[in-house]
């Protein structure tokens, strides 16, 4: 295989590999903009992945599968929301609990579904365009979810920076006391933000189990939820940068699969470390700029709010 012929599929695969990260990161970005740090992304992705998969196997309808995955993600997130918003539990601890719980729950639900294959979604085919060399398959040969994730980027951006609801959400994340004094329902706004984050994580997980792999295996997200959390920091809470970050990680993931194909002899386990090490690297690169993080991070991120206090 010539190198050029390899680039097309690598590029196409990169966009697909970026999709679950993009869904989850966009959701978490909105959650964090409202001032809530939900570390349970990994757990919500897993629950979404298994529920979407199970429903699709049983109904044969991928649309239903994705809808249920989003609902399941949101339902899982609602546990986090009730605990942190109304029962004033520590967000870090509750997020960790959500991940641990999600790992267990998804494994339990998925017991009967291990090893069942699924077809995956049909890929777009536009004669002429999809057949273009190098970029054809990457740009015009993906399935609907890949395009949906990309479409969500400008939507989230417009919501946050051009709509009144988005302005209120950012205000709540910036200064919940002031927002409360102005009469905004801080807890209600955060509740819906958390549900949205859960639904997006659920979709990201379902993309993995129903489309990308497509099959169910325990713990199949293998850290993607955590990488999505790192992506939000990397993106300094900006949707477009989150997309670029997701593509970068998609690229790293695909690259490690192809390195051996390129004739470089490195043990596969060491190559598999790449996405995780890359995450640490980008976190370090972005976090060292303290001033930038301060200007962009929602000021109330992770802080508890009690309306009567």
């Amino acid at each position, binding site marked *: 295989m010539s190198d050029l012929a390899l680039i097309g599929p690598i590029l196409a695969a990169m966009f697909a590999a970026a999709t679950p990260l993009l869904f989850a990161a966009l959701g978490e970005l909105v959650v964090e903009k409202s001032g809530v740090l939900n570390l349970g992304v990994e757990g919500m992705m897993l629950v979404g992945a298994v529920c979407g998969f199970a429903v699709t196997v049983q109904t044969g309808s991928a649309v239903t599968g994705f809808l249920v995955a989003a609902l399941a993600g949101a339902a899982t997130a609602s546990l986090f929301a009730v605990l942190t918003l109304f029962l004033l539990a520590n967000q870090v601890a509750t997020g960790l609990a959500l991940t*641990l719980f999600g790992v267990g729950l998804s494994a339990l639900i998925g017991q009967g579904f291990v090893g069942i294959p699924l077809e995956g979604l049909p890929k777009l085919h536009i004669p002429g365009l999809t057949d273009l060399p190098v970029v054809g398959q990457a740009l015009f040969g993906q399935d609907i979810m890949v395009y949906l994730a990309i479409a969500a980027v400008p939507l989230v951006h417009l919501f946050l920076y051009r709509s009144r609801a988005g302005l209120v959400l950012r205000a709540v994340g910036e200064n919940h006391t002031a927002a409360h004094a102005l009469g905004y329902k801080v807890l209600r706004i955060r509740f819906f933000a958390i549900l949205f984050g859960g639904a997006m994580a659920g979709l990201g997980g379902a993309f993995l189990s129903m489309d990308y792999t497509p099959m169910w295996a325990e713990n199949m997200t293998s850290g993607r939820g955590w990488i999505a959390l790192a992506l939000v920091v990397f993106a300094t809470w900006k949707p477009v940068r989150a997309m670029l970050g997701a593509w970068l990680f998609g690229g790293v993931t695909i690259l490690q699969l192809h390195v051996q194909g390129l004739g470089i002899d490195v043990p596969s386990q060491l190559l598999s470390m790449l996405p995780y090490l890359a995450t640490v690297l980008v976190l370090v690169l972005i976090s060292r700029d303290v001033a930038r993080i301060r200007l962009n991070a929602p000021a109330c991120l992770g802080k508890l709010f009690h309306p009567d206090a």
Partner: protein
Amino acid sequence: MSFIRLEPRGQASKTMVYVTPLLAVALTLLSGFILFLAMGFDPLKALYSFFVAPVTSVRGVGELVVKATPLVLCAVGLAIGFRANVWNIGAEGQLTLGAITGGGLALAFYGEGGWWLLPMMVIGGAIGGAVWAAVPAFLRLRFNASEILTSLMLNYVALLLLNYVVHGPFRDPDGFAFPESRLFEADATLPILWAGTRVHLGALLALLALAGGWLLIARTFIGFQIKVIGLTPAAAGYAGFDQKRIVWLTLLLSGALAGIAGMGEVAGPIGQITASISPGYGYTAIIVAFLGRLHPVGILLAALLMALSFIGGEAAQIAMGLPKAITGVFQGMLLFFLLASDVLIRYRVRFGARRAAA
């Protein structure tokens, strides 16, 4: 929220600090009852085979101690860190590194060991875990990177490293290409403390860690500094407590203890290095730390309970065909219920309309 309200207490309730863990356990059992019922099992029988049957034999009690040992070692260190708001969630990776370095020494001195080998392995495991934990400490202090994410990423890296060594350098030369090391020799194996069980010297190390942890938390000035940093970092800065030093101390300490736990697994119940040395002890230890109220005595009780959930899961799988994954569900639920009921420590629940007077 007008019918049920939370009203701040003037002082935190000391009673509730002890009551809420029990409440959480009770709620978990209740949920388990409902869950088993929904899954079509006889709930009482299932709960019995999960939580009681495993500890009706000496061997079972021994297994409880065996499983509690790494949990205690990891949780004591984590708890000290959590008190200072140092969120090391990389105990699983640090445990794995301890197994690689501590166990690696056993392999390196294979056939030429002596009485000195075991102490050296303990130290080696501690150093391995501490080095792995030093990475997030350094990245947080030098680059402001969140130790939550970096320590977690290193868990995956550590597991892949373990996978690599058992397929590569540590693989048993006579093992027919199985991804396992040689079985450790006697002088690289932790002695059994309780005949008829697998309880090993690691249990004693865990108790020592508990005692040391208690002394640090309750009596030393360092423990006081940790508490202040965790509650109010600005006050710690005002008082002149060196926060960097505390981040280093807590991460290195918890890494070292997790490393010893990992070494204890390979040199104890497993007896060799394999691709899977922990059913998630490092993660469960997070639950143990919280459930134990970040306090050594609580951690001991919580570790025994979580150990029970591990062996209960295995036992119920064998006895009733219950899915093993239920262990994780129970553990997650327990932490949820604990976090939820903790609200009672600082707030009173009031029923009725808002105007009710205090």
